[in-house]
């Protein structure tokens, strides 16, 4: 079976600090998985390695069947990565940003198609405004439109709900549900237990660079583990 994301003994150190201390994880295609963890637990580092933004000190990571070390461009074509930073250009309009990123992905999207993508995230009325004038939440919506542009097989979302109002959270959730329905895989990190468990099939908790709990998202044990490792900081 080709996993959407597969990690074997992944370690990452910054100087002497071990950000990841041996992560093993397999995520099946077409599923939604949430990674919970405290600040500094290693969630973002793990997603960055999967997204080819950082290199693991040791271990192996494959995304959509492609090794992140030896086939990074194939990995990048297969993924969509969104964090609390939206990575869009503030001097360009929302429409220009989408046009620019679509061309980078080799897509020939028509102007109507770009407009429709922006309308989908509720930005139909701000198509021609520089995103510099956007609020944090509106910026995140442009980021959501950007990450969905090429219909990625695997969505890696690092705290995607940051700065979103309830309406935008609803839009993002609808888009994620639709993506999973169409066979994409969603891997998201969040501190918010309810948002994290909402549509997830499985939940994993990272603490001090290791996966310390894996279980079905709906299981009572998952909430207990969240309480222990995330809210109480891993203290017994």
């Amino acid at each position, binding site marked *: 079976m080709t996993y959407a994301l597969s990690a074997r003994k992944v370690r990452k150190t910054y100087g002497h600090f071990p950000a990841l201390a041996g992560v093993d994880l397999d995520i099946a295609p077409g599923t939604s998985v949430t990674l919970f963890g405290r600040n500094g637990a290693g969630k973002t580092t793990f997603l*960055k390695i999967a*997204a*080819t*933004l*950082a*290199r693991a000190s040791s271990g192996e990571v494959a995304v959509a069947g492609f090794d992140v070390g030896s086939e990074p*461009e*194939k990995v*990048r*074509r297969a*993924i969509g*990565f969104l964090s609390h*930073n*939206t*990575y*869009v*250009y*503030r*001097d*360009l309009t929302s429409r*220009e940003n989408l046009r*620019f*990123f679509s*061309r*980078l*992905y*080799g897509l020939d999207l028509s102007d109507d198609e770009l407009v429709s993508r922006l309308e989908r995230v509720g930005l139909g009325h701000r198509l021609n405004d520089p995103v510099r004038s956007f609020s944090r939440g509106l*910026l995140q919506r442009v980021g959501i439109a*950007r990450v969905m542009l090429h219909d990625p097989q695997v969505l890696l979302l690092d705290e995607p709900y940051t700065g979103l109002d309830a309406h935008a959270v609803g839009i993002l959730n609808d888009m994620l549900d639709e993506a999973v329905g169409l066979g994409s895989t969603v891997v998201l990190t969040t501190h918010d237990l309810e948002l994290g468990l909402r549509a997830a099939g499985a939940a994993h908790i990272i603490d001090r660079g290791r996966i310390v709990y894996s279980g079905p998202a709906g299981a009572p044990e998952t909430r207990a583990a969240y309480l222990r490792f995330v809210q109480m900081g891993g203290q017994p």
Partner: protein
Amino acid sequence: MRPILTLVLKDVSIELRRKESVAAMVMFSVLVMVIFNFAIESARLDPALRQDLAPGILWVAVSLAGILGLNRSLAIDLDNDSLQGLLLAPLSRGSLYLAKVLSNFIFILVADAVALVSVIVFYDLDPNLGLLWVAVIVVLGTFGFATVGTILAMVSSQTRMSEVMLPVLLIPLTIPLIISSVAATATALGAEGARPNLNLIVGFDIIFLVLSYLVFDYVVEE
């Protein structure tokens, strides 16, 4: 090739709106020319000696304005962490580097053009075939400057004192290029019909373009 053009067009489009980098470089190169002109006027140098100083002054203006522009070159990509968005695109890191070199090359060339016109005016240079050679030397020298400057701007952007670090790293590395460019410019402006030696400049351009292309991946990764 298309992604590289897309990236360059993005940089040009944003620069046309912000008007920061090129405007600063042009202003700076003109100021350098004016200051040198005042200094040389006050020394009451012989006109022939003034013309002998022109190649050196031209390259002082080109390199200092270039450093100023290179220091600003990554600002648009570091604002809102947009560089990460580029690193997530299905392109080789080398393509990102080449696009940035081209953008920087274009921006610095604009300042070079103004510096070249200024040096012709201030130092009474005759418009002749030698000036065409000077233009070729400026293009080749600026390309070499952009190849090294782009990768060093990326390195220095990750340090605390990036605006100081870039010239500290860049000037020593480009000394062979600047010396060769000044010598070639002096030859071109000297005896009528003299052909400047461009071998070292072209060699520098090729070597640093290939080396920087190969190591750029390691410079941008965490």
